[in-house]
C-alpha cells in the first residue's frame, strides 16, 4: 500500500529580523532594500511611488535599541534597513475582483514594478527592519494560525507562524495589515486552522 504525502508548494519569502525574531514576507511583495536614513522620513520615494514608512519596532511596541545579539559578528553594524514592499499587481487585481487568494498575496514571483492603482487600496510600505536575512522557499502551507490567546492587533499583522525543521519559528507577516489604518484580517482566518496539537511529554 502506498501512502501519498500531499505536496506542499513552496513559495519564496524574504526573511527579515526584528528584535531577534525571524519574519517572512511574500517575495512577490518585495521591491528593494536600502539603508535606513537617520532621521527616518515619513515616506520613501522609489520609482515615482511613495512608500509609507512603518518602523516595525515601533509598530510592535519594541524598544528602539536591539537587545538581541547581532546575527553575525562580522555582519552589518547597528544600521537598520528599509524594505520596500508593494502589493503585487496580481493580488491587487484579485482583491478588486473579490477573489483574493488566501492571505491576500499571489503565489509565485511577480516582476517588481509600480503597484497597480485601482479602485482598491494599494499597499506600498517602507518597512524599517533590523536585518535582511535572505530569500528562501518556504512551505507556507505548513503554517499555523496564531494561537487564540493572541487577540490583539497582532492578528492583523501576522498571517500565522511556520515551525521550521530546526525548531525555530518564522512569523509570516501580513503586509496589508501593517499599515497604520489597516483593516482586520478576513474571517475565517486566512490560514486553514491546523489540527489541534496533541502534545505529549512525560509527567514528572
Amino acid at each position, binding site marked *: 500500500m502506498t501512502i501519498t504525502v500531499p505536496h506542499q508548494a513552496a513559495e519564496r519569502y524574504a526573511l527579515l529580523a526584528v*528584535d*531577534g*525574531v*525571524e519574519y517572512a514576507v511574500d517575495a512577490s511583495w518585495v521591491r528593494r532594500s536600502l539603508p535606513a536614513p537617520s532621521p527616518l522620513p515619513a515616506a520613501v520615494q522609489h520609482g515615482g511611488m511613495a512608500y509609507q514608512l512603518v518602523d516595525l519596532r515601533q509598530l*510592535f*511596541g*519594541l524598544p528602539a535599541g536591539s537587545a538581541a545579539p547581532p546575527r553575525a559578528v562580522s555582519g552589518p553594524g547597528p544600521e537598520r534597513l528599509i524594505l520596500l514592499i508593494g502589493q503585487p499587481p496580481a493580488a491587487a487585481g484579485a482583491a478588486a475582483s473579490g477573489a483574493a487568494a488566501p492571505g491576500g498575496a499571489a503565489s509565485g514571483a511577480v516582476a517588481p514594478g509600480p503597484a497597480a492603482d485601482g479602485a482598491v487600496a494599494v499597499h506600498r510600505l517602507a518597512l524599517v527592519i533590523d536585518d535582511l536575512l535572505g530569500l528562501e522557499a518556504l512551505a507556507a502551507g505548513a503554517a*499555523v494560525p*496564531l*494561537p*487564540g*490567546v*493572541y*487577540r*490583539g*492587533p*497582532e492578528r492583523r*499583522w*501576522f498571517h500565522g*507562524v511556520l*515551525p521550521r525543521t530546526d*525548531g*525555530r*519559528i518564522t*512569523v509570516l507577516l501580513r503586509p496589508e495589515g501593517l499599515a497604520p489604518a489597516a483593516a482586520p484580517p478576513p474571517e475565517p*482566518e486566512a490560514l486553514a*486552522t491546523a489540527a*489541534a*496539537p*496533541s*502534545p*505529549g*511529554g*512525560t*509527567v*514528572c
Partner: protein
Amino acid sequence: MLSRRDRGREGRQAPRPGLLAFVIGGRARALSLGLVAGVAEIGPVTRVPAADPGNLGLIVHRGAVLPLVDLGRRLDGGADAADGAVAADDAVAAVEGRPPAFCIITRSRQAIAFPVEAILGLQALPALPANGDAAASPWEILDPLIVDLARDQDPAH
C-alpha cells in the same frame, strides 16, 4: 489474586496522585492530572509581538506550536500573591529568584504551555472538608483558570 473489582477497592483505599504540584510566583500551585499533557524543558522561545504581556511567545513541542503563557501574571498580576494563596514552604523558597526552566503543557483542544519555577511532584487529591472549602487545600488549584484559558482560545468559542 484480586479481581478487578477488588483491585479497584484497594486503589480507592490508598491516596492516588491526582494533582501535579508546582511553583509559580513563589507560591505552590497544582493542576489536576487530567488537565496535564506533559512537562517539558523550555527551549527557544519566539517572542511574537503581542498586546497582552502575558503572552510570552511561542515554543515548538513535538512539532506543535504552543503559546507560552505567563500564568503568574494572570494569577496575581506578577505582584504579591492574591488572597488565599498558599504560604511558601521550604521547597518554594528554594527556587525563588530562579528563572523558569520547565513548562507544563495543558491537555485541551487548544493546548497552552506555562512556565513554572519548579515541579513539586505528584500529589494526592487533598481531602476537602464537608463544606468543600477549597481554601483548605495545601496548594492553590488552577483548574478553573486553565479551563477558562482553553475555552478563551478555542476558535469555536
